[in-house]
């Protein structure tokens, strides 16, 4: 769900002082962006496309893939759209309605390599954008789009590149309750959130100019809303995984400033048949283990997690094959988070189960306080 990045950007831009252009007295500025509200009905493939009425939107893909010889790779590509001003006064095409940020990362555990790159652009005259009539989001020459029922991902930088074709696989599943995923105490602090949880994937991954043909499974998140976190929420830990028994699991836990778990934490279990089960904060525990990774910027990320979902008799242990999978973009956006491939082992109703997936840890570097107080 990659919230931190979008929040950091969106909220701080919203904190911008109002422009000196005259305001008509008595006319209250209308709420510029639409809130995510209960009862939203997702329709596909329409809802793959962009929802520019909402302030924040992202398309997120991660995957665990391997070559025919069995060499493992992980990848992440996320296209963010962050609304800045729904109707800029300046008629210039360069006036910033939305900012587009794209993160690309490739993990190569056997080569001990983690490579990433980013794009930060305004829409401008077609430099970056997200279509509303069909699914196509691009940033410079990086692009994700729908070709029939296939998702095509293309992005290239000197350090890392991907060229992947993803089948939708299992049908999209909607997170949360009644079409919204609640993130804060206030009604509007929520998002519309769905996932494609097991997408058969093939294509190529390039690391430092070395190209590998790969196949595997991917996970896609598409989330949009206007207001997400609230004061006192420091960050979160989020996981997605494909289990060996044909099920998939998504969990996230919001951490508060005092270290406690925020009650809005939740999760979704997808059955082999595609049926979903929603968990609220009481239904699961997510606990960090001993091993950790200390980043150059001082952030310390736990590298082991234990998951317990008593109602499903699930007990899982999460580890990672590569410690340093931190995406640090301090120069451009000041954002740093850990986003990397994980291995899962444990038991389901007493029987051994394995899996692989992605783990995201945010709010370990700096504080979300400054930007959040703007809301």
């Amino acid at each position, binding site marked *: 769900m990659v919230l931190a990045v979008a929040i950091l950007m969106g909220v701080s*831009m919203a904190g911008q002082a109002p422009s000196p252009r005259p305001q008509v007295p008595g006319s209250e500025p209308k709420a510029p962006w639409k809130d995510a509200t209960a009862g939203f009905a997702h329709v596909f493939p329409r809802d793959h496309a962009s929802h520019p009425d909402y302030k924040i939107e992202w398309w997120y893909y991660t995957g665990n893939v391997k070559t025919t010889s069995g060499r493992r790779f992980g990848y992440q590509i996320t296209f963010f759209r962050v609304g800045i001003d729904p109707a800029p006064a300046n008629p*210039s095409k*360069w006036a910033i309605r939305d900012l587009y940020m794209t993160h690309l990362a490739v993990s190569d555990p056997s080569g001990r390599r983690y490579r990433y790159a980013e794009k930060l*652009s305004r829409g401008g*005259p077609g*430099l970056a954008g997200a279509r509303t009539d069909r699914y196509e989001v691009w940033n*410079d020459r990086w692009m994700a789009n729908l070709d029939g029922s296939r998702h095509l991902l293309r992005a290239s930088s000197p350090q890392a590149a991907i060229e992947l074709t993803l089948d939708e696989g299992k049908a999209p599943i909607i997170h949360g309750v009644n079409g919204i995923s609640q993130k804060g105490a206030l009604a509007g602090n929520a998002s519309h959130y769905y996932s494609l949880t097991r997408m058969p994937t093939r294509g190529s991954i390039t690391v430092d100019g070395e190209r590998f043909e790969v196949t595997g499974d991917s996970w896609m998140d598409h989330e949009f809303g206007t207001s997400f976190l609230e004061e006192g929420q420091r960050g979160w830990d989020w996981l997605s995984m494909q289990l060996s028994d044909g099920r998939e699991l998504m969990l996230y836990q919001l951490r508060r400033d005092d270290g406690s778990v925020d009650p809005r934490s939740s999760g979704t279990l997808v059955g082999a048949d595609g049926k979903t089960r929603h968990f609220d904060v009481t239904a699961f525990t997510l606990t960090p283990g001993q091993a950790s990774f200390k980043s150059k910027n001082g952030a310390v990320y736990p590298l082991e997690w234990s998951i317990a979902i008593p109602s499903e008799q699930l007990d899982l242990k999460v580890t990672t094959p590569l410690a340093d999978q931190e995406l640090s973009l*301090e120069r451009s956006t000041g954002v740093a988070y850990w986003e990397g491939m994980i291995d899962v082992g444990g038991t389901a109703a007493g029987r051994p189960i394995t899996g692989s997936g992605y783990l995201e840890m945010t709010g370990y570097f700096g504080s979300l306080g400054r930007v959040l107080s703007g809301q």
Partner: protein
Amino acid sequence: MRLFTQFILRPLAADKMRTATTILGVALGIAVVVAIQLTNASSIRGFETALETVAGKTAVEVVGTGGLDEDTLPSLNWLREYGVASPVIEGNAALVIGDLETLSRRDMEAVRVLGVDILRDMPFRDYQLLDVGQDRDTAVETAAPRGTAPPAPAPVPNVTTQQFLEILTDERSVVISEKLATRRGLVIGSQLRMMFGDRVNSYVIRGLLKNEGPARVLDGNFVLMDIAAAQLAFDRLGRIDRLDVLLTAGADVQGTLAAITARLPPELTAQPPSRRGQQVETMLAAFHANLTALSWIALIVGLFLVYNTVTISVVARRQEIGTLRALGLTRLKVLFLFLGEAAALAVAGIGVGLGLARLLADAAVAMTSATVSTIYIATAAAPPDLDWGHVWLATAMGLPLSLLAAAVPALEASQVQPTAAMRGNDTLDMRVRLRPAMLMAPLTVLALAFGLTQLGPVNGRPLYGYLSAFAIVIGTGLLVPAIMYGLARVSREALRRRLGVEGLLAHANLTSAIPRLSISVAALSVSLSMMVAIAIMIGSFRDTVVYWVGQTLQADLFVGPGIRPTVGQEPTLSPTVIEAVRRHPRVTAIDSFRNVDLVYEGKLTVLGAGTFSVVLDHGAVLFKSPANARDRVREAIGQDGVIISEAFSHKFGKREGDTLTLPTPKGLHGFQVAAVYYDYSNDRGVVIMDAGTFRRYYGDLAPSGLAAFLTPGSDPELVRMEILATLDEGHRAFIFSNWSLREEVLRVFDSTFAITYALELIAIVVAMLGVAGTLLALVLERRRELSLLRLTGANQDQVRKMVIIEAALIGAVSQGIGLVMGFALSMVLIYVINVQSFGWTIQFHMPTWFLIQASIAVVIATAVAGIYPARRAAQLVLSHEE
């Protein structure tokens, strides 16, 4: 060496007046040449420094006529393969300082505005944000009053690109240089008013930049905006000025440039940023070349003085030379002795000249910067400092030329026969007796001068024209002794009758001194002839322009933005102002025009759009060819026809019927030339197309000016005031009435040639110094005769009068020769040099009254130059009884 000290330096030191005049003459010559170098450099340097400062790390830029259509940018995405591309809007705005009501062009300070997408542009230029104004509300309240220094801003080391973007996002946000903020007492949160074209906008300062990178441009007058805000401010929505490209580290610039060029559509050009500097340099080349040529006149006159001095020195010391030769001094050593004298004079002259150059350069820059910025480019009006290059230039020019000038007399000294010279019966008269051979050389040179005028330009420069002028100068100079002998024969009686015995004596003295005097007279004639030539040329030119202005300035009012257009910057009029003019009840028709820079065959020219029908109906263009130009132009409307200026026609060898292939945003396209018209406002060359044609190819660009026609009987001044009164405070236009624009045109014209007269005046001053020096030498030499005169009853007044008559006669003769030579030179200037450098047709016009006045002034001035020698002559007799 001791001999040199005793034989050369001591006499030089003793004869202070003559030595000083010679050194001053050389010094002025050197100073003028170096000063013009400095001045020429300053106009280009200002542009190039600004260009480099803003270009930052940009290796390649992509440009097009009238900028690039922003919608083509996605199709240029492949530039990614070579590096990062950043779209740029750049231009000049005026910082509005005082009260808007009383605003004039003087109350505005030029600032360079750069509009970029900071997300892309960050690696291109060295932006160092000092303060991003976290707490803006407080900043507004604590804004320091004007004139007081704001508290030193604290550097913000870790500003992210996104934070940088945040402070620029709003269309009224700017970031300015710390230097500008300090100078103007501005802080973060302060309001800043800037004028773009005819629009005055208010901005809020959101951040300060350390004086690094682009913030150093124009001494810190730098304003950074978001590209969207800049497009809006400059009225360039839909376009960008250029695309800067930062190549991938280690890329081969030339190779990449070629690769990019090969993939670009033909209407776009990839070039190194310095190319724009070179284009401006080329554009100014003709203007600079003429100034340089003019500056050499002063130097040549200075060198005449060296020749003069060494000659006098040789003449005066023939006996001593004879003695030295008899004592065993070799001819070579004699030669070196006198060359040494020239070298000593030259070195001293160069030293003084370099010192003077800087002073003259300041004056010259002040005189030319108005021209350069009015006609060509906005420039920083300060000449560069003298460097070793200039010292080298002065030495490399001054020393060899001085030695060359001294070579003739020095060689002659080395030829002195010891015995004859010691006996004293070896005289100089032999050298200058009128012989046919004396006429042969100058006549050959003059014939050559005529031949040279028939040759075409070399690389667009009137090289043979300059040579021809030079040949006229040399030929006439060589002819001077013959002319003087001739005059001496016919003028004796006249002088006796008019001026009595003093006149007769003066005639006798001058006649006997012709060998020595010829040099001074030649020098003075040369500088006077240049004055005459330039007076004729400028007079003719001005007359032509007055006629042209009368024919072409037909509209009653001319409306322009508050900012002058310069290369790459075309300020525009906004619809509000155009409407205000159109709506006025007395306005019957308006013709709007728009100019963009056009690079044609690698040269900067101008592409303009005008309304052909209005132009034809109101006769606002003077056509040169063909005869039925008006019909041809009417046919050209809607047919992609263009008209070209005489300068363009001349520069590129195009004429009616030819086709020009011009880059348009829609690709290369051919336009047929319908007619050639006269245009004295611009020597770059102009192509004009009908507004409709222009719009079809280049899009709907806001006009850069308009001409309005009023109902008959309207008072233009009143209409002007009424239109100005309807403009709100966000708009400022400059409106000229027909009459005031004509005045303005002639004011610009006259200021353009102010430097020409100034340079000429210096040459004349140098020549006058020569006359005074020569007369003084003659006086000193004639001590015995003068004493004899006094003994035989002449009083002081008579002696004084005689010398002053001599001086005035020299002036009269010189001016007479100068008038004839000047007439010849003016022909070369008007029909060869001007045509070849600028492509202008100038109608010949003799400024008779001016020439009569000037001639009288010259005779009086030379008489004045004779006063000091005359007084010395009168005193000498009393103090040196021999």
